[in-house]
């Protein structure tokens, strides 16, 4: 085909089966829009947020516990009200979403790297290598993410100063989430690899004389990535929720730094004293974010699953 016959990338994506299924489902389009909006706003937080929650100079305790702008006593400067320290809730949510999405994305990326690598090796070579890797996966699966986080948290606490530890908190969460997600990825990739490796195109590569590494990287990897993409998307939601859970429990991000989990935790303390906005808006943000990610994950699964085609 000559270049001028190939429409540009956007048009091709729009015209593809995936694009078609996307357009046909209003819920998916809505989820996609919300996700783009939320992640975009979170990434641009330093530029669009009216206040900087890290800038102690801009925080005034006299502004504490102001309700949202449309309620009586609200201040138009603080759209969603302020928290107990006088920080603008809208700004903290933007910054908090940024932290949550960052933690989720990095931990999923780590989990996918580890899971794909070990899954490919286990599925392709089989035998003892497979047995060892899969037993590690089995053991890993018996530990809930929270327990892994507690464990790492406890260990790091024991040899670090308090300041070092709060700097390390985000790393602890990322490792804990990655550790709890990678076994799932490894299992899926192993299963797909075992199917793909007996297909004739892999045999053909063996006849050519390709080594195991080249066969895994060039032939099998691109063909097992479909299900991985689905798992990664759905687990992005899981990881964001996991971060929120851990931060809510006080294990994760230190309370001074905003993340959706810490915001909900702070809000929870005020739920009976009437300042409900401090819980509702971060909670809604989290729910909407995870729901959108999951809806997109479902769409991806439908598109990539050949049985549903």
């Amino acid at each position, binding site marked *: 085909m000559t270049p001028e016959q190939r429409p540009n990338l956007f048009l091709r994506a729009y015209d593809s089966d995936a694009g078609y299924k996307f357009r046909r489902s209003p819920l998916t389009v809505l989820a996609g829009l919300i996700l783009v909006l939320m992640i975009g706003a979170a990434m641009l937080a330093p530029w669009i947020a009216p206040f900087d929650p890290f800038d102690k100079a801009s925080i005034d305790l006299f502004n504490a516990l102001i309700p949202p702008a449309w309620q009586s006593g609200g201040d138009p400067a603080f759209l969603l009200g302020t928290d107990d320290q006088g920080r603008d809730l809208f700004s903290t949510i933007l910054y908090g979403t940024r932290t949550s999405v960052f933690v989720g994305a990095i931990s999923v990326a780590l989990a996918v790297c580890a899971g794909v690598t070990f899954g490919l090796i286990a599925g392709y070579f089989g035998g003892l290598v497979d047995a060892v890797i899969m037993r590690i996966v089995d053991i890993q699966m018996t530990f809930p993410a929270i327990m892994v986080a507690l464990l790492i948290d406890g260990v790091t606490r024991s040899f670090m100063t308090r300041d070092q530890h709060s700097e390390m908190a985000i790393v602890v969460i990322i490792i804990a989430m990655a550790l709890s997600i990678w076994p799932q990825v490894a299992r899926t990739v192993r299963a797909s690899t075992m199917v793909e490796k007996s297909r004739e*195109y892999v045999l053909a590569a063996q*006849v050519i004389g390709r080594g195991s590494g080249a066969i895994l990287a060039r032939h099998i990897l691109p063909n097992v990535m479909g299900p991985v993409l689905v798992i990664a998307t759905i687990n992005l939601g899981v990881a964001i929720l996991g971060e929120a859970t851990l931060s809510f429990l006080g294990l994760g991000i230190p309370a001074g730094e905003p993340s959706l989990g810490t915001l909900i935790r702070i809000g929870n303390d005020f739920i009976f004293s009437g300042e409900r906005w401090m819980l509702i808006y971060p909670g809604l943000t989290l729910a909407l974010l995870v729901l959108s990610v999951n809806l997109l994950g479902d769409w991806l699964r439908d598109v990539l699953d050949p049985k549903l085609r």
Partner: protein
Amino acid sequence: MTLLSIQNLTVEYPGRKATFTAVRDVTLTLERGEILGLVGESGAGKSTIGTAIMGLLDRPGHVAGGRILLDGTDTTSIPDLLGARVSMIFQDPLTSLNPLYTVGQQLVETLRTHHRLTPPEARGKAVDLLDQVGIREPETRVDQYPHQFSGGMRQRVVIALALCSDPDLIIADEPTTALDVSVQAQILDLLCNLVKERGVGVILVTHDMGVIAQTADRVAVMYHGEVVEEGPTQQIIHAPRHAYTQSLLAAVPRGDRKLDRFPSLSYAPIGADVQTAPDLSLTSTWLRSKAPDVGTGASTKPLLSVKGLGIRFLTKNAILPRNRRYVDAVKGVTFDIARGEVLGLVGESGSGKSTVARMIAGIHPPDTGQILFDGQDIAARQGSHDRQALRRQIQMIFQDPFSSLNPRMRVRDIVAEPIHHNRLAGSGAETQKIVGDLLTIVGLGAAAGDRFPHEFSGGQRQRISIARALATRPRFLICDEPTSALDVSIQAQILNLLKDLRDALDLTVLFISHDLPVVRQMCDRVAVMQKGQICELSETERLFETPQNAYTQELIDLMPSLGPA
């Protein structure tokens, strides 16, 4: 009264961009006790007619026009149509039985749905049915599970299941395609007898003209959703009127004598793109210039010589070695292939022929025996540098064109991979030139390189596979059932291409097939394999005319033919 009458049936599948008409304006009739053969190539719409009768069209497919009458009543208004009036026999006996229930349980369940029977009565009837379909010792076998039956026996059970409800009409969709030739003949006999005894009408859907010739009373030939010709079997086979039927029959490989080339009377309706014959004057192309490390071709020794080859596979694993169970997949296989010769390797499924091919290609290391290529043992040199050079001269073409090409790679990269790997080309531009030449030689044209495998049909994919195999300039080509997944007219094209390439490039070929007529056309000598061993090896013509071994004799007798021509 006519049992089944299909009037002007049209079936459409509305798609996103266009509506696909799978069946267009088809009119057919079927009497009781008659077998109507529906024949055509894949995508001709023959199976769709079967599913339309059953009312089981996959959504969004639907009947867009016409009627189907069973005994004069529209099938859509018959409440107990499925099961009670119409039964179906599917292609794969492995998947059409539930592996978790015994054969008896499945028969009893079906019997009791359709008749008022107590469990013991139903069981008695089930045993009777198994007896009728020719299963020995039905009393004991009724309590066995599907996996305890062989493929042919399972298909007999499926037929028994189809008979449970005393149907008026049976739709048999490729009932013997998954079976070996020897079993196929028995199943077809059984089907014919049951039809005559019970006065059932049968629609036999198949792509195999041989099956039709043996079984059907009348034949309808389908092409692109339309019935192009219909008539009594003998007339269709010996005096076809329509050009498509003629081309279809001409492409069926003959088992009775050897021809130089397959007659490929290509049938192309107006508007179809005709594939032009590739230019095989290869003198100027890269393929002709020999690789530097290829030995002199003047030796009289065989190019490939296999001695006492054997491999066993683990059937039951255990920690203690003495508790492990093995099966000898291949045992003591010995043969030579002379330079420029085509050796056929035939046998039924499970006879070990593909395993032999894979050992020679280096996919499985053999447990015992030697593989001498040009005098050097390649089995013993796993992974060494010398072996890589030898391996380059042995290439393989696989059976399934739909799985032998990586779906995520462009055709250009697929064909270029062996060239890159062996560093046969100096530059990227040179590689592209070679890939273009190769694609032209196999009849696809250089432009095909930009596309992905899924954009090609089965026959075209097999051409890509051939181009990839030729890319290392091999001297020895292993063809593992290269055409068994293809339609017969495509098969003829591919086999002709292989023949031409063999002549032009002076290739030595190991040709594996279960299809005896194809082997007769392609091979100089033939080895017959049974249960992992070679039971007869001789010149093709001698083997077909005067087979020495009893098993070979049996295979040749069962060879499907279109009758005296």
